[in-house]
């Protein structure tokens, strides 16, 4: 018998067990552990106290050395991880909820007054330069430490909102929604029970993207002095390092930028894997 020849080039890629996704998940878990250790008080509590000398080299006491003021870089990095997670989670969760609500309502009442209003609001928010918005808000909120978070939530929901609106508009005309109406279910119940649960895949992916964006933004804003006010952040560490790098001291710079890079990369790898999972069109033709 002839051996069967492959018509398309046989170049199989393992379909399950996405190794990149797993690696991403592991990285994120390590960072989460670090953040948890800071929240539970296991480590990083001495981030503000000035204990050591200026620019001490890594040692058993100061694992990553000290900064210009003699503060423990390791403790500061651990505490910064907690800050990053706090910001990322808070902004991702609240902005996704806001996006789901406003997008859902806009999509449900699309081409009506409410939809117009929400779209107008989204248009306005999208057209304000972001950093100007944060500065203005920080000024308006009189240096409130939550000004940065508020600004991010107010601007980041628009992306989620737009996607949810589109999906709700699509779902609204699906036959199971019309059947639900035919049974006589109240509109709000249909929205809650039959429409919004089916936008979950969008919310999961969007929340992951917002999480990453929020951490990046937090670092940049803190670096610029608009972000974290009475805490520590990789951004503040980087701001310190601008003075240190000139003196040939790279501790703060390497630790802060390296940790941020690793976490964001890990998270992106994980988010890609999640997206492949929840996207029903991902696999077969």
């Amino acid at each position, binding site marked *: 018998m002839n051996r069967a020849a492959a018509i398309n080039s046989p170049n199989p890629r393992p379909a399950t067990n996405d190794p990149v996704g797993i690696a991403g998940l592991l990285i994120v878990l390590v960072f989460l552990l670090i953040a948890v250790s800071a929240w539970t008080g296991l480590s990083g509590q001495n981030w503000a106290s000035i204990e050591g000398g200026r620019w001490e080299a890594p040692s058993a006491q100061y694992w990553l050395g000290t900064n210009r003021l003699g503060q423990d870089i390791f403790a500061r990095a651990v505490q910064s991880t907690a800050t990053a997670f706090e910001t990322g989670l808070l902004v991702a969760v609240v902005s996704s909820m806001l996006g789901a609500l406003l997008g859902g309502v806009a999509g449900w009442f699309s081409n009506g007054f409410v939809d117009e209003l929400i779209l107008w609001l989204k248009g306005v928010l999208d057209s304000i330069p972001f950093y100007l918005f944060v500065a203005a808000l920080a000024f308006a909120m009189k240096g409130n430490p939550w000004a940065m978070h508020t600004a991010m939530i107010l601007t980041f929901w628009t992306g989620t909102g737009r996607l949810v609106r589109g999906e709700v508009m699509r779902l609204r005309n699906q036959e199971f929604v*019309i059947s639900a109406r035919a049974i006589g279910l109240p509109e709000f119940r249909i929205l809650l029970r039959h429409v919004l*649960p089916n936008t979950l895949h969008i919310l999961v992916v969007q929340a992951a993207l917002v999480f990453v964006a929020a951490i990046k933004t937090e670092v940049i804003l803190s670096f610029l002095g608009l972000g974290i006010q009475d805490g520590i952040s990789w951004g503040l560490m980087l701001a310190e390092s601008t003075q240190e790098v000139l003196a040939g001291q790279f501790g703060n710079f390497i630790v802060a930028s390296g940790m941020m890079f690793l976490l964001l990369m890990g998270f992106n790898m994980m988010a890609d894997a999640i997206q492949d999972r929840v996207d029903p069109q991902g696999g077969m033709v």
Partner: protein
Amino acid sequence: MNQKSHTRPEPPLLEVCKLSRSFKTRPGWFGNDEPGFAALDGVSFSVAEGEIFGIVGESGSGKSTLARCILQLPRPDHGQVRLEGRDLSGLGSRQLRQARHKLQIVFQDSGSSLSPRRTIFQSLAEPLEQFEPGARPEFPQRCRLALEQVGLDAELLPRLPHQLSSGQKQRVALARAIIAGPSIIVADEVVSSLDVSVQARMLELISELRREKGIAFLFISHDLSVIAQVADRVAVMYRGRIVESGPAKAVFGKPAHPYTRALLEAIPDPDPDVPFNASLAPDIQNRQQAPGCRFATRCPRVFRACLDTAPGDTRLEDHPEHHVECLLYETARENSQ
């Protein structure tokens, strides 16, 4: 008019009277606004208790709009829908919700007719929650019974729609419609997405539900051969109007309207010796409403008067309930008188 053919004293189960609905087309980018087109333009018919009334038409005939307008989703612009003598278009939203358990709908697409993240049990129990909230302890039993009635096994209850075959999903959709005890079900292309081997059994099931539970069906389909299997009476729709109606035997056996004839001739029968004719030009989907007959531009038997005179309803001689809207017959009648 069609609906006057009923002489019984009590009102028919479902009576649709001069139903119209038009949609605004979106304004074009360059100001070339099209006028709104009438998806339904004065449609009247009635369905008796336990009757299967077939509505047949091609895409754009308005048959799906008709299904939705009957359920008041959306409400029609003009005309009445009377269910057991009660005008649905006059009801407020709360009363309408209550009236709905008598009138259910089942759709074509087995993929989207069930809520994707809810189990079969949740989907089946939903109408019960709505109409009989007090009977909650009986729900599992009632759902099991409903599944049995459509020939499915109760073990499907905890499953999600995507775990079912399309035939099973359509049966569940039907079970969901009958569970509240409706007197009529609007079935919009319910077998169109099914394979013939499954389709035939679904059609049997519909006939059986009518026979055993006395449920009437408004059976809407583009497929004449399917309609011919189940319907007692049929109406042929073309661009928002009923152009021919009557008992299925009369309409399919002695089609009067040129459109009905063209449709019947274009059905590909599996028997290669059955004649087949592809004479009808494709619909150019011109939404412009000409004053005359709307089929005139495609009609093989068009004559001058068709272009500017709208045909009226004419009763045919072969059967007292066989009606057609075509000038060919109006003139024939006038000439003979």
